[in-house]
C-alpha cells in the first residue's frame, strides 16, 4: 500500500468563518492502480489532492493522517517534504501553462529538475530532457527545449508537465484534472500517454476529474465526493451499472448520450451545490436529493460497506439490511 489517507479534514478560515472543504475522508491507493476522484466543482477534489502533497496555503487547517509508505507526512515542513515531493509523488495541474514558469525556458525548468533528482551534470540532464520530450511525443525535441512555455499549445504544455514529472520517476502521480483544459482529441492522447507510462514505470495515479467518462475508462477504483464528503466508492464498472447513492445516480444520468433526444435529458439535479459556509443538516445531499425522506435531514449517513463497495446513504444501507 503506497498511500493511505485516514480521516483527512481540511478547513479554511477567513473573516471569522470557517469553511470545511474536506470532511473526514479516508481512502487508499494501492500500488500500480489508478484511483479516480469525481465530483462537482467545490466538492473538495483539488483540496484533497493538494493535501496529499502538503501543498495547501498556510491558512489551511488539516487534521487526520496521510501515510506514505507507512510514514505520516502530515504537518512536515517544506524542507522535510522535499525528499517525498517529486521523487515519490508527482503532481500535474489542470492548467499546464500556468504550472510552468513563464520567464524560464522549458529546458531550464526540466534540467533543473533532472539535476536535482538524478544527480547528473547539466549536459547529461539536457540529453535526458531531450529523450523525455521525445517520449511524450514532442517533435523537434532538441530545438523545442530552448523555447518558452507560451510558445507551446496547451496539449503540448501538458506533455511537458508530464515529461518533467516523469524525470523524477515518482511512485504516485496526482493528476488534478489533467485534461480539463484540452480538446477532446488531445485529451484522449494525454490519457493514453498516462496509461502507457503507468505501465512502464509501475506508478499509481490519483486521477481527479469531473468527467465521468474519463474516470470510467481509466480507473481501477472510483471515489465520489460531494461537499467535502466521500459518498460512494467502488469499482467504476459496478458504480456505472448500479449507482447506489442518488448523487452518483444523478451524475451518471446527467452524462449526455448521443442517442438520447434533448427532451429526454431530465435527470438534472435541482439547484446548485450549497455554500460550504451553510452546510445542510443531516445528509449534505438531501436538499437536492429526489429520494430524500425525513431521516435524511436529521442524521448524517456514514460511509458503510454495501455489496463490495461503500456508500453513505440510508436507502442503500436499509435496502441491504432488509434483504438480509
Amino acid at each position: 500500500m503506497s498511500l493511505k489517507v485516514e480521516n483527512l479534514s481540511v478547513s479554511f478560515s477567513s473573516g471569522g468563518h470557517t469553511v470545511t472543504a474536506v470532511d473526514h475522508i479516508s481512502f487508499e491507493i494501492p500500488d500500480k492502480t489508478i484511483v479516480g476522484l469525481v465530483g462537482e466543482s467545490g466538492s473538495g477534489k483539488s483540496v484533497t489532492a493538494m493535501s496529499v502533497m502538503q501543498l495547501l496555503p498556510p491558512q489551511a487547517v488539516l487534521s487526520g493522517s496521510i501515510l506514505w509508505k507507512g510514514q505520516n507526512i502530515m504537518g512536515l515542513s517544506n524542507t522535510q517534504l522535499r525528499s517525498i515531493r517529486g521523487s515519490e509523488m508527482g503532481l500535474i495541474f489542470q492548467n499546464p501553462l500556468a504550472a510552468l514558469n513563464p520567464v524560464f525556458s522549458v529546458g531550464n525548468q526540466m534540467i533543473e529538475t533532472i539535476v536535482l533528482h538524478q544527480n547528473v551534470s547539466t549536459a547529461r540532464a539536457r540529453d535526458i530532457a531531450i529523450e523525455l520530450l521525445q517520449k511524450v511525443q514532442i517533435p523537434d525535441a532538441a530545438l523545442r527545449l530552448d523555447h518558452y512555455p507560451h510558445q507551446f499549445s496547451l496539449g503540448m504544455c501538458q506533455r511537458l508537465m508530464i515529461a518533467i514529472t516523469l524525470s523524477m520517476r515518482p511512485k504516485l502521480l496526482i493528476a488534478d484534472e489533467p485534461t480539463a483544459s484540452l480538446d477532446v482529441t488531445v485529451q484522449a492522447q494525454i490519457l493514453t500517454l498516462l496509461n502507457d507510462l503507468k505501465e512502464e514505470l509501475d506508478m499509481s495515479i490519483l486521477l481527479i476529474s469531473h468527467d465521468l467518462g474519463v474516470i470510467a475508462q481509466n480507473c481501477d477504483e472510483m471515489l465520489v465526493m460531494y461537499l467535502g464528503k466521500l459518498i460512494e466508492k467502488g469499482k467504476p464498472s459496478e458504480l456505472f451499472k448500479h449507482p447506489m447513492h442518488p448523487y452518483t445516480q444523478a451524475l451518471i444520468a446527467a452524462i449526455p448520450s448521443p442517442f438520447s433526444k434533448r427532451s429526454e435529458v431530465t435527470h438534472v439535479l435541482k439547484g446548485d451545490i450549497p455554500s460550504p459556509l451553510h452546510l445542510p443538516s443531516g445528509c449534505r445531499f438531501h436538499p437536492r436529493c429526489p429520494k430524500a425522506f425525513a431521516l435524511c435531514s436529521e442524521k448524517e449517513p456514514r460511509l458503510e460497506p454495501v455489496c463490495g463497495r461503500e456508500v453513505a446513504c440510508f436507502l442503500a444501507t436499509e435496502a441491504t439490511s432488509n434483504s438480509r
Partner: protein
Amino acid sequence: MNITNGLYIKKFLRRLIPSLFTLLGISLVSFMLMHLAPGDPASMMLDPKLSLQDKALLKHNLGLDQPLWTQYGHWLGHVLRGQWGYSYVSGKPVLRAIAERLPATMILSVSSLTLILMLTLPLGLWSGYRKDTGFDKTVTLLSFVGMAMPTFWLGLVLMLIFSLKLDWLPTSGFLEPGLETSSFWEQSVAIAQHLILPLMTILIGSLAGLTRYYRFETIGILTQDYIQAARARGLSETRILFKHALKNAMLPMVTLLGLMLPELVSGTFVIEYIFSWPGMGQLGISAVFARDYPVLMGMLMMSSVLIIVGNWLSDVAYRWVDPRIS
C-alpha cells in the same frame, strides 16, 4: 544579416522621428510658459538702483524685447546648431554650467539608486515570503516610519546627531576648499564622507516604496501555479524564492528603472539644498529664481531627452528579460 540590420534601422527611425516632434513640442510649450511667467531676468540681474534705460538696454541686448515667437525661433536655431547659449547669471556656456554640476548629482543619485535596489529587492521578497510574521511587520513598520519623516527634518536630525553631537561626519558640502589639488584618493575619501549623510537621508525616505512594491509582487507570485509546481518537484525554498519568484518580481523593475533615468541627472532639490551639495538640483532652483532662461531650457531639454531615452531603453530591456514579449 543586411535585412535584419535594415529592419533595426527602420524600427529605430520609426521610434526616433515621433520623439523629435515630442521634443519640439516640449521645447515650445516650456519656452512660452517660462517667458509668460511673471518676472524677468533683467530685474533679477541688475541692481534695483539702476535706471530704467539701463534695464531696457540690457533687455535689448539679451533679445528679450523681441516678440516671443522670434525669441523662440532664435533659441531653436541656435540649439539646432549646437549652441545652447550662456547663463544670464554666471555667463558660462549652458552645457558647461550643467556639466559642472552633473558629477555631484550623479554620485549621489547613482549610489542611492544602487543601494535602494540592492536593499529593497531582498527585503520585499523576504517580507512577501514571510507575510504577516514578525519580520514582515517590522519591515513594514520601519519602512513606513522612514517614509513618514519629512526629508528636510530627517536631514537636519541626522546632521545634528552624526555631525554636531558625535562629530563623525561633516555637516554639509562636497569637497573642502583646500583639497582641490590633492590626490584623487584623498578627494574620493572626502567626497565619500560628505556623501554618507545625504545618502542616508534619501535611503530612509525611499526604501518603503519599492519594498512594499516587491512584497506585494512576491505575495501575488507565490500563489501562482508555477510556484506550487516547483514545490511539487521538490525544489528547495531558496531556489523557489530566489530563482523562480525573483525573476518574475524583477520584471516591472525594468520599467521603473527606465522611468528613473531622468531622476538620476535632475537631482533632488531638498537634499542638495540642506547638505549644500553642488548638484543639478541647486543649479535648477537658482536658475528658476534668477529667470535664467538658457540654463532652464538646457536642463529641461536634457530631462526630456532622458525621459524619452529611458522609455525606449525600458521597452528594449523588457523584451530582453520577458520572453513573452517579442
